[in-house]
């Protein structure tokens, strides 16, 4: 399309079969006013409005690369609008200092997509500007397989701010959590990731260097990247000054109403998971459980570091032992797996998102170890240091909003698992007994959402009955 404007291509006649394409020249010239002057000598190149209905544009390709000298009127970038691809011309002489939206990236109309420096000396300045001020994330090109994951984020940042990094510069957005275990990866120096994994990493802004590969020979495959993205809370919160991370603190400081906020990596991952969950036919079964005995037990062993979450997870795990189907999962719609271990994922809110640390083998581990493990996981989650296997191996999920006084709610089933249980607050409730008396009991409502392809109403009902029995007579929880 590069030559589109210079060719004798006639966009359209008035034929009804043609889609009207607005004459490009008109719109391009309209950009002139948009190329606002940021500073004396560093200008932003903005995403132009190429048609009246265009709200965002996709960068098809950069005709020029960073460091290139540009003269007025030269085509710099090809933008795909809702109607066509168009070359965008440059209106000032200068140097293309920094590309802020990579090829394939999308930017809203009027947002900066690159910086133009007037002289070569100002390129460095512009680059640092790009990395600190860009609202859309800069060059988050997936790390090439040659690039080494940095073990020193500080050093990486310096690299990034250096003059005109190659467009393939790896972006570090957090500390190195793990390296690929691919045997040929030379101790993590090389990253072996499948093509789709690389694509996803770019899309989800996941740094491949810290993804653990589970594919053949330890290669990073798509699902590893997805799993990493789901936990990318870590990267977003802690990394200083790179890319999307830089914008987060600003946002939390004060929310500007009417502002459109792009998803953070984690929000993107959550969004994908939630949409994916719509493909699963779920149903819900609720149950009211008396918690008097559990509360009493909790009081007794609290001093030994046992938490309510661990107790609930333990009770659930013991109930699952008797109802393996509720601990199963269906992935392909044709078969389902009785999971070999009972791993209870517990949803935890952390700033700007949600993560589900997993208590592995909750049925086998004793309540004290389980409580210690839970504390460790929560600390790690806060420090954004959870490893993928610590948040993505759950077979059954618990979500508890009881601490807010919520008495009942309903949870969305995380894809890849069979059921999730929403736990409400335990509250003193007036209860009528069979013999006609009225009494007070502590009760909580639980509500299980399950995948009806594999788990049926009777399964859940009997699981809940078992769970109620365990909670109402909790002596087994402590062994």
């Amino acid at each position: 399309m590069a030559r589109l404007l210079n060719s004798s291509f006639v966009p359209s006649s008035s034929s009804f079969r043609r889609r009207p394409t607005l004459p490009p020249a008109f719109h391009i010239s309209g950009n002139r006013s948009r190329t606002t002057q940021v500073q004396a000598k560093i200008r932003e190149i903005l995403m132009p409005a190429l048609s009246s209905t265009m709200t965002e544009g996709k960068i098809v390709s950069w005709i020029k690369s960073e460091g290139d000298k540009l003269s007025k009127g030269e085509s710099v970038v090809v933008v795909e609008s809702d109607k066509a691809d168009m070359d965008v011309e440059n209106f000032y002489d200068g140097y293309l200092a920094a590309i802020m939206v990579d090829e394939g990236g999308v930017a809203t109309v009027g947002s900066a997509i690159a910086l133009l420096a007037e002289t070569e000396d100002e390129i460095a300045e512009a680059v640092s500007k790009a990395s600190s001020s860009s609202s859309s994330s800069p060059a988050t090109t997936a790390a090439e397989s040659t690039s080494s994951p940095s073990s020193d984020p500080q050093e990486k940042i310096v690299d990034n701010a250096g003059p005109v990094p190659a467009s393939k510069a790896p972006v570090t957005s957090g500390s190195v959590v793990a390296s690929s275990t691919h045997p040929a990866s030379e101790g993590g120096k090389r990253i072996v990731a499948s093509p789709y994994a690389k694509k996803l990493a770019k899309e989800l802004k996941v740094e491949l260097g810290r993804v653990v590969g589970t594919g053949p020979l330890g290669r990073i495959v798509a699902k590893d990247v997805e799993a990493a993205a789901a936990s990318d809370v870590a990267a977003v919160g802690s990394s200083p000054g790179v890319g999307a991370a830089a914008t987060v603190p600003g946002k939390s400081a004060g929310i500007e109403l009417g502002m459109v906020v792009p998803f953070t990596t984690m929000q993107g991952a959550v969004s994908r998971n939630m949409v994916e969950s719509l493909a699963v036919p779920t149903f819900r079964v609720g149950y009211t459980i008396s918690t008097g005995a559990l509360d009493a037990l909790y009081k007794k062993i609290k001093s030994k570091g046992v938490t309510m979450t661990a107790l609930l997870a333990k009770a659930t795990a013991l109930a699952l032992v008797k109802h393996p189907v509720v601990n199963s999962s269906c992935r392909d719609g044709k078969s389902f797996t009785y999971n070999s271990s009972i791993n209870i994922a517990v949803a935890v809110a952390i700033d700007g998102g949600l993560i589900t640390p997993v208590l592995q083998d909750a049925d086998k581990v004793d309540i004290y170890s389980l409580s210690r493990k839970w504390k460790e996981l929560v600390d790690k989650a806060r420090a954004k240091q959870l490893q993928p296997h610590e948040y993505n191996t759950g077979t059954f999920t618990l979500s508890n909003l009881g601490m807010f006084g919520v008495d009942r709610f309903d949870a969305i089933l995380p894809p890849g698992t069979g059921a999730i249980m929403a736990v409400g607050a335990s509250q003193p409730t007036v209860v009528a007994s069979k013999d006609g008396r009225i009494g007070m009991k502590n009760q909580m409502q639980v509500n299980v959402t399950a995948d009806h392809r594999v788990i049926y109403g009777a399964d859940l009902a009997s699981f809940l009955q078992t769970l109620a029995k365990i909670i109402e007579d909790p002596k087994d929880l402590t062994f």
Partner: protein
Amino acid sequence: MQASLSVSFSPNSSTTISRSHNTFQSIPFSHGKPLNLRFCGLRREALGFTSLKRHDSNYRVHISSGRHSNKVSAALSANGSPPKSFDYDLLIIGAGVGGHGAALHAVEKGLKTAIVEGDVVGGTCVNRGCVPSKALLAVSGRMRELQSEHHLKALGLQVSAAGYDRQGVADHANNLASKIRSNLTNSMKAIGVDILTGFGTILGPQKVQVGSSNNIVTAKDIIIATGSIPFVPKGIEVDGKTVITSDHALKLESVPDWIAIVGSGYIGLEFSDVYTALGSEVTFIEALDQLMPGFDPEIGKLAQRVLINPRKIDYHTGVFATKITPARDGKPVIIELIDAKTKEPKDTLEVDAALIATGRAPFTNDLGLDNINVATQRGFVPVDKRMRVLDAAGNLVPHLYCIGDANGKMMLAHAASAQGISVVEQVTGRDLVLNHSSIPAACFTHPEISMVGLTEPQAREKGEREGFEVSVAKTSFKANTKALAENEGEGLAKLIYRPDNGEILGVHILGLHAADLIHEASNAIALGTRIQDIKFAVHAHPTLSEVLDELFKSAKLKSQASSPEPVAV
């Protein structure tokens, strides 16, 4: 080309006197794809030559029993020399698509024809190329449709998860190849072409040994149509399992999780379409700086956006794969890459499989070319524009022609066939020179890519050299009703032309059924039709053909080009 031939002839059996008039119609013949072909050729040594006899096919002498002589209806080449006896008027070495096309046309022209095949009838195209790949691509196309949820949703369709059975897909490809092979064989047998089994070796002028040394056949004219084989660069070890060529890939013995495809031309691109539809991830390795070299740059760019970027494909350009080791001892396939320019090691890839699609090499070894003093050039048989073979000194070798991949002029099945037909025309007295710029090519990805004539840079260069202006017109499939009805609006048709006289220099299409749409343009080029004339041709509405209608209509010609003189009233 000759998708259907109406051949009318009277077989005249040498044993029976009765004559029957049969009409053969429509010999179904599918080729289509420019995957280049490979015919199998000949072997063995040669001795001198003997027969200098000339032969006029009107007065044929039967040498072996059971041969059919065909009534000659065409003009004969009067060569002045006294009729001498040859076994055949025309002997074709290699029964691929090129040889087949030549054989059919030769019979139509009344030549007594034999075809030599050392392997299987059909050559590369039918057995290891265009034909089975089309079967796989038919599967990949449907898989893509069924997997494209939003596309189906937009049409209001609901389909539950699509899956495939690898063996079933492989069988489909194999069955198709067998079917086409038997069609091809029957179409030749039915009209009396002798199929001689064995490798053919040229012993001397007009003399070929078929298979064993005691089987020597003479013919007035000989066509070499031995085709090509996959080209495997040095350092690459093909094991047929994890490092494969198109020959193996078409058997679809496995669908690897991750396959590297070396070469991003037609073959590589088509296989990337197949593999990604079946769930593989693909890495392209291309020596040039851009993927899909050879395509019009604009089409290549769009193809990259449509066929590469949204798929599970990544690529390395500007690199050579210097060493590829098959998977063994629990290690993956290892590919060593060096920078194409600096020759410095650049990267090492570890993948599950590698497909070598770096082009094709002519299959001309052991053909006996030494016996007639012909030196191949990188394996290709040198020919002039009439496909006449040139010897080492650059002189014409009488009665010897070479068509198809073996001459390397245009490595496409249908080009070979067209060259074969032009040779038959020449030996029967009509000087037909094939216009290669009218031969279309197609790549059967989803959507398809097709082209004929020059690319835009080629046209501009030619315009500069010869001093004419070059213009470009484009239309989008988004503007086509039928394409939108199919919800397949992605696509572009591009016309490169001379605004001064309306000559069509090239047409490039990427879009739904592009491979079928190109023929309007290729026919126009072949027949010399100008834009000012073709733009008035009517296209049914609504059809995809209207994309070309729009294209021709959108071309802007200089006023003097308006051709048909208005009729004076």
